[in-house]
């Protein structure tokens, strides 16, 4: 008789997430993913100005702020086949890189680390010993016994106050927690320091975008960030150097603190390198365009099928039919009217909520607000995992220099800390997703400064151009804009008729990853990755959180894991 464990809400994500797991002999047996919030933005956009769409859709998410705005202007520009000025491309690129750096830092330290790190255990640490351990695997300027001791004192006072606030009722002392008190103390210290470094990254975004979250400097045709080296109200030398300094500080944190922390924690939990692989078809799109058309990129994209790197097939440009023609969404198990697999330009979005009879998912019925994005491969529609792991694997498989450099470095550090040989396949796992994210952050921290230099060089040549005004033709045009966002491949699809939006669809990274089963019964990546996941205490399903969090869920939705094979339904009350 299997029990059913309900986790609702899942916290430390964007949005509302519900999980149900069926443990069997200490492992998860089956899983369903179900989204439970819908806001109707696709409907709200109909009939509005394409110029305004980016403002609306940016509000899809405030954690992934900027990303929908960018995908949106790119989709309208794609429909118009409108090139944007080089400066605008560089300004967008700096925003892309800096936002992703903030996002990856926050995801690891503030949304995920406490699945692996026991704060209460840190109270027992010896700060001197912690300093030695930290020194053994990283060269970070803000480590040191006195720093660790100050944090520990602070933490003790906080715990003794009896008001634990957001840390109340956590998984302290859980048998799956394996770090020593000293490593826990190092991690808690970096949790606090990371708050400051993520802020520096967003400040770089704000200098260009006017504020953060939700930038306000985009336009179909470029950006509205005025450039003039000889004016005080524009992007001038003081502003540019402020950005550079912030990017350099963040780069130092990523290379010297964030990446080594992720590798060290993964090494301490090396048995987890065998869990959480799930869907091993990977999709990433190229980004950081280096020209005005979107044909040359600093970050590569492509697909990999079945976890086999030799199957890599590149995606080369903003107009690449390999991507544009092969994306589809299925709604067999989604709360929308109908049962179809359609291309985004052909989709409609008519909500039809049928609920969950009996309060739980019935896997034969509709059970999610999330659609199921699928990619056409050899005539079949297959699920794809998107995210930093996909991007790193696709880059590695294509021999992308920067990717290869940092992947090889990370794997050699992981091998030596874990005392076991870790190869590229080790990344296809729960901790592997965190490692890939940190590797991507390393790349972006370098590339952000490269974009900055290119912008300054170009501006120095007297080019202040930032905007290429759009003009809308009569009749119908269609566009696809894609962006490799922090959580993976994002694409926006617009149909414009006589200068007004006729249809608008966003195929979001978390939709790819959190998707329910499709018409053929194929699971989405969350669902698949949870099968075989360990679960020591069904009442406190910490390990389930570990795997779900490793995807960096960003869904105003819920995920269910349900066994439909007649198990006894027990809502476990954990105290």
């Amino acid at each position: 008789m299997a029990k059913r464990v309900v986790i609702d809400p899942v916290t430390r994500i964007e949005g509302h997430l519900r999980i149900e797991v069926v443990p069997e002999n200490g492992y998860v047996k089956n899983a369903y993913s179900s989204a439970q919030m819908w806001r109707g933005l696709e409907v709200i956009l109909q009939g509005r100005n394409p110029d305004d769409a980016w403002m609306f859709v940016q509000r899809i998410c405030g954690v992934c702020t900027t990303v929908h705005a960018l995908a949106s202007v790119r989709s309208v520009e794609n429909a118009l086949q409108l090139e944007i000025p080089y400066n605008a491309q560089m300004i967008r690129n700096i925003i892309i890189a800096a936002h992703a750096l903030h996002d990856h830092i926050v995801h690891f330290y503030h949304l995920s680390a406490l699945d692996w790190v026991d704060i209460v255990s840190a109270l027992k640490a010896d700060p001197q010993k912690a300093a030695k351990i930290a020194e053994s695997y990283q060269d970070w300027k803000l480590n040191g016994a006195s720093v660790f001791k100050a944090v520990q004192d602070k933490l003790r006072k906080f715990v003794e106050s009896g008001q634990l606030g957001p840390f109340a009722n956590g998984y302290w002392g859980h048998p799956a927690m394996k770090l020593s008190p000293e490593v826990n103390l190092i991690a808690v210290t970096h949790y606090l320091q990371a708050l400051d470094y993520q802020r520096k990254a967003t400040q770089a975004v704000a200098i260009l975008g006017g504020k953060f979250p939700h930038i306000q400097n985009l336009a179909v045709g470029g950006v509205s960030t005025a450039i003039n080296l000889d004016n005080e109200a524009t992007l001038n030398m003081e502003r540019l150097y402020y950005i550079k300094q912030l990017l350099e500080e963040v780069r130092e944190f990523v290379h010297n603190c964030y990446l080594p922390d992720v590798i060290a924690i993964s090494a301490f939990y090396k048995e987890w390198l065998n869990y959480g692989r799930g869907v091993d078809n990977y999709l990433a799109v190229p980004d950081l365009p280096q020209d005005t058309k979107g044909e040359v990129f600093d970050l590569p994209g492509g697909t990999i099928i079945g976890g086999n790197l030799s199957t890599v097939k590149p995606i080369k440009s903003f107009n690449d039919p390999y991507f544009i023609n092969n994306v589809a969404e299925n709604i067999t198990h989604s709360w929308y009217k109908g049962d179809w697999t359609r291309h985004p330009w052909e989709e409609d979005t008519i909500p039809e909520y049928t609920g969950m009879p009996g309060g739980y998912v019935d896997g034969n019925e509709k059970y999610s607000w999330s659609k199921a994005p699928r990619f056409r491969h050899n005539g079949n529609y297959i699920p794809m995992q998107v995210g930093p792991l996909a991007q790193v694997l696709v880059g590695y498989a294509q021999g992308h220099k920067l990717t290869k450099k940092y992947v090889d470095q990370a794997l050699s550090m992981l091998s030596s800390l874990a005392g076991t040989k870790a190869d590229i396949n080790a990344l296809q796992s729960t901790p592997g997703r965190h490692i890939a994210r940190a590797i991507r952050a390393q790349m972006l921290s370098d590339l952000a400064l490269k974009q900055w230099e290119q912008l300054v060089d170009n501006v120095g040549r007297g080019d202040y151009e930032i905007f290429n005004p759009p003009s809308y033709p009569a009749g119908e045009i269609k566009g696809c804009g894609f962006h490799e966002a922090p959580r993976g491949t994002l694409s926006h699809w617009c149909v414009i008729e006589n200068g007004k939006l006729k249809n608008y669809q966003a195929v979001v990274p978390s939709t790819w990853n959190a998707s329910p089963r499709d018409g053929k019964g194929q699971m989405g990546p969350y669902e698949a990755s949870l099968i075989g996941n360990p679960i020591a205490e069904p009442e406190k399903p910490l390990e389930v959180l570990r795997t779900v969090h490793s995807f960096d869920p960003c869904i105003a939705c819920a995920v269910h894991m349900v066994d439909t094979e007649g198990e006894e339904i027990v809502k476990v009350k954990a105290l």
Partner: protein
Amino acid sequence: MDRGIFLGGIPGTTSRRGFLRACAIATAAMGLPMEMVSKVAEAAKDPERPRVIWLHFQECTGCTMSLLEASHPDIASLILDLISLDYQETLMVAAGEQAEENLHKAIEEGNYILVVEGGIPLKDDGVYCKVAGKTAVESLKKAAEKAVAIIAIGTCSAYGGIQAAKPNPTGAVGVQDIIKDKPIINVPGCPPNPHNFLSTILYYLTFKKLPPTDRWGRPLFAYGRKIHDHCERRPHFDEGRFVEQFGDIGHQLGYCLYKVGCKGPETYSNCPVIRFNDVEVWPVSVGNGCYGCTEPNFWDTMAPFHDRLPNIKIPGAGIQASATEFGKAALGVTAAAIAIHAGIGVAKRLATGSKSEE
């Protein structure tokens, strides 16, 4: 409470001096005299930290993210020193049953400030947003019962926000449309400046009452005047120097953005004064107009965002003009009056509408 704990080069955390400075900044932000600093500091050091429950409904988490970017107080000081954040789904460690338990406990104890982020859908019995199997409207009513006050953070929880834009497919509304028997204060914006929210909380903790508000329930210290009244580009408006298109010479010289859609003349907020992210910016400062995100229903009333406002009060007429008077009226006397004010040379250009609609 000793705040001198964080030393040793940990950035962004508070020494005693830093703490007092933060209190001074907060005091100034609330428009209070400087002799109030000690009172603010005292309130902030209250040994029993005031409890806060934070609920998310139809939202994007942007308001929560804005808090992560705040500096005075920063998020660490806020949750470790100033308040006890007993429930907040983005930041809390506990999940599922453990999280639910925290919420029930906190509600049982009562005497908390309730913060709401996101709109509340009412259509079809509220099925469009569920948390822990309960609809947003159920959860809101339950949590409001024992709250001492409610702060609606962001335009969504204040007025319905983006999901309430036409045709409002989920029937989304703001907190004040549902809860009628509690003091509610709105801190709108998309997202609002986090310091407007933090100063509202500090005001309440210091004086045990909510700050005075305008007709839309917004604290006067933050939303008492129009963007236009404090805009650094105002002299350009007065002199008739306008940006005609992004990237043109006027744009490169920092001219007024009214003609490329700035909604500053009809938007009440302190953005030009306190700015964002501690890097001296706000949308206008980088070269983009204000979109009016602190105003109710701005998604419908302020769009298209790059079209200029059709009906503007004559500069100098003061702050009595209300946002409700703003409609899509045809250009008339007002525009002519602006034209005269803005200099005869530009009258003709001013009286022609935006080009992007043609």
